[in-house]
């Protein structure tokens, strides 16, 4: 029955390995921006509700950057979604259709959240105390978006749920009743808060010359958020490890060499990041925090492949060789990289 539901995939033009590499490269970058957006919105909400001079100032500082990180979170989400569709389209399109109502509502929610973020930024002074409601709503909207995203990413790995469609064709099927859902969702949210804390600590350093007090406060708070949310998140991570299918779990615990190494490295980076956070060494915390995000996103990819392994692996995709478009893309990518670098350099010069 299940194989009667999983759609036949289309052919690809270059080996699946390139798509896999592009996916693994772009996903963590998207996560970093998304976490910055989510976590900093959460922290700004906290600051605004707490009130006080330096809290307001830090919230304002976060507000100025918020629309920018939203733009990049979305923008860098496009690439991994594209490559995930190439590799796993038959699962991802299917799960999206099954939860279509929620999936498409993300667009509307995001537009509202995004405009609220601009409103919060451009009218920060004018809004005064009312601003806390604006940022709170934006933050809540982000939590909802995360809920739908986690659902889809889980549902796409559960083809045994696909037949629910016959009883519900209206696009309102979710995966939140699955036992993995809750730990996964909490793990995603708390991870995002932690990295968001790191991000707040980092952007407050831009104020080091003009407002050292603010820079210090941002660093202190950001590292604290990073530390405590990470500690709790380790528990959610363990919970998730306990409930995922056992073949995937044993793979991480020695069953599969590469999987175990990646998993252990991810854990090691977390511990190092925590130690440096405790010691208030922002640079090192950031370095290991970012490494953790990269490695955890690899772990995530391994989990997905483990779920799908009874039905499909990307190397099953049929290749009809045509490399020239790939080369074209690489050239555009390199040129784009330098142009972006030049623009950012000029922008920084303009502000100094």
């Amino acid at each position: 029955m299940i194989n009667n539901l999983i759609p036949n995939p289309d052919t690809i033009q270059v080996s699946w390995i390139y798509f896999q590499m592009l996916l693994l490269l772009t996903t963590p970058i998207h996560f970093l921006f998304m976490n910055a957006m989510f976590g900093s919105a959460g922290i700004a909400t906290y600051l605004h509700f707490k009130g006080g001079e330096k809290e307001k100032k830090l919230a304002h500082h976060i507000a100025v950057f918020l629309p920018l990180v939203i733009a990049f979170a979305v923008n860098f989400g496009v690439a991994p979604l594209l490559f995930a569709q190439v590799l796993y389209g038959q699962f991802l399109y299917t799960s999206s259709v099954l939860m279509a109502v929620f999936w498409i509502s993300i667009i509307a929610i995001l537009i509202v959240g995004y405009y609220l973020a601009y409103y919060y930024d451009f009218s920060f002074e004018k809004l005064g105390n009312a601003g806390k409601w604006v940022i709170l709503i934006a933050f809540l909207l982000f939590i909802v978006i995360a809920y739908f995203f986690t659902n889809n990413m889980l549902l796409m790995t559960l083809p045994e749920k696909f037949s629910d469609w016959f009883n519900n064709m209206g696009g309102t099927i979710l995966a939140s009743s699955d036992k993995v859902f809750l730990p996964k969702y909490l793990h995603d949210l708390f991870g995002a808060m932690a990295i968001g804390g790191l991000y707040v600590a980092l952007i407050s350093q831009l104020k080091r010359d003009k407002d050292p007090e603010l820079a210090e406060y941002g660093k202190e708070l950001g590292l604290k958020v990073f530390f405590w949310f990470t500690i709790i998140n380790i528990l959610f991570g363990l919970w998730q490890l306990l409930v995922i299918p056992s073949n995937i779990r044993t793979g991480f615990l020695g069953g599969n060499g590469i999987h175990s190494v990646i998993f252990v490295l991810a854990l090691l980076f977390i511990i190092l990041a925590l130690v440096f956070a405790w010691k208030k060494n922002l640079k090192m915390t950031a370095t290991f925090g970012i490494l953790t995000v990269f490695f955890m996103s690899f772990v995530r990819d391994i989990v997905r492949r483990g779920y799908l392994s009874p039905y499909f692996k990307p190397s099953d995709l049929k290749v009809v060789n045509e490399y020239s478009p790939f080369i074209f893309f690489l050239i555009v990518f390199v040129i784009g990289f330098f142009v972006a670098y030049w623009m950012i350099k000029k922008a920084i010069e303009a502000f100094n």
Partner: protein
Amino acid sequence: MNYPVWFLPAIGGGTLIAFIAIVHVFVSHFAVGGGAYLIALEKKAYKEESEEMLSITKRFAKFFILLTMVFGSITGVGIWFITALVNPGGISFLIHNFVFGWAAEWVFFVLEIIAAFVYYYTFGKMDRKTHLKIGWIYFISAWMSLFLITGIIDFMLTPGKWLQHHSFWLGFFNPSFFPSVFFRTFMSFLMAGVFGLFVLSFYKNSEAKEKFVKYSSLWVIISIVLMVPFALWYVSVLPVEAKSLVMGKSPEIVRTTKVIITSSIIAFVLGLIVYLKPSLNKAYIAAIIFLAGFFIIGSFEWTREAARRPYVINKVMYSNMIFEKDLPKLQKEGFLKNAKWVSVRNITEENKRLAGKEIFIHQCYACHTIGGFNNDIKEKAKSMSYTALTKYIEKIHKVRYFMPPFAGNEEEAKALAAFIAGDLLGKEIKEVEKAKLDGKTIFEDNCSSCHEPEEFEDLISGWDKAKIRKALDMLEKLNPEMPPYNGTPQEKDTLTEYLFKLSGGVK
């Protein structure tokens, strides 16, 4: 048949796509042309050394950022989402064949965002030359996005030589690519002018504003003039079938092209008036031009989509996600045996209507709602009996080119007809024996899909029986839309009697 269908019987997927797509193309073309427009305004302000013009430019840049960055880019993602929900098969095919086109487009999207932010946030803080350069990078990146997406969108309409060689580049640089790129480029300049006039109409009156209004109206009128030759070129490269739909075969499309032409004339004339007398750019005048712009672009996109019917990718995949190449197999072996996402594999008397429903969902729902406002099947099929529908379904593509051929066998056609006539229309389902055919039944089976009986009073008033009988042998010659009627001579006689009666008999 390969993917599940998001089934909202009363709404229909097409409506959802149209809703997001039309607002998106409006804003996204503005996002391209507006880039060039901003550079032009800024340059003009520098040339005239006018602080006031510069501050208007900066204000416009803020509006531009808020509209294109948020609404433009998120609805762009929205189109991707919604098309993947409504037609996953089509999107999957495009993504897999043109992934590096999209990927390159993504790079330009990154540059667009960085450039837009740098442009806006460094306004007045950066030296003029570099600032204009950033503006140029924005415009070029945005235009490259247009360039890349156009290649893929127009591939769907005119795949051209791709059909033989399946090569990325042949598909990308397809026959309608160049006319389309030019057409869209000028359309994007038109949108810039249209938005410019609209936003300016709300600004305080001043000399600087007047100059900009005059200048923006030029963008409107010149763009419209330049769009004309490319529109004609565009139509001239369409495949014969699409061309005949655009040139008159499809009444819906003809109506829409009239909207395009009328709106263009209105925008042109009002643009000219505003150019001659900028103080006339009142909010309501600007709003009319704005709406005209919206109608031009919306109708254009709608026409492009409609001209592709019955395909989503011309000659490759039908609107209902069935590959043209799979058709013979499905017609021979049956749809239900080969499809995924169906529960009935073998039709029995009990599950016949359920099978019909599943076939409807996978083959007809792509364009028909059930009881909805858009192309409601209950409305469209209301005059047809079960047998009429069965026959109609089997030759559906021959009778109506814009509908895909039925991808199934005879039994499945009957099941589908039973679902529509029985479940949806509440009619009786019974097989009619050949010998018992009376005139009314023959009419219902063969003519009712296009004709109401009452029409014949006028249609053939004054015809004698011989003339009617002769007409039945050559229906296809009387009107190119009519299929030939191939009943037996006896049946033709029976039908003649019936029609003669309908016409009111001898007068």
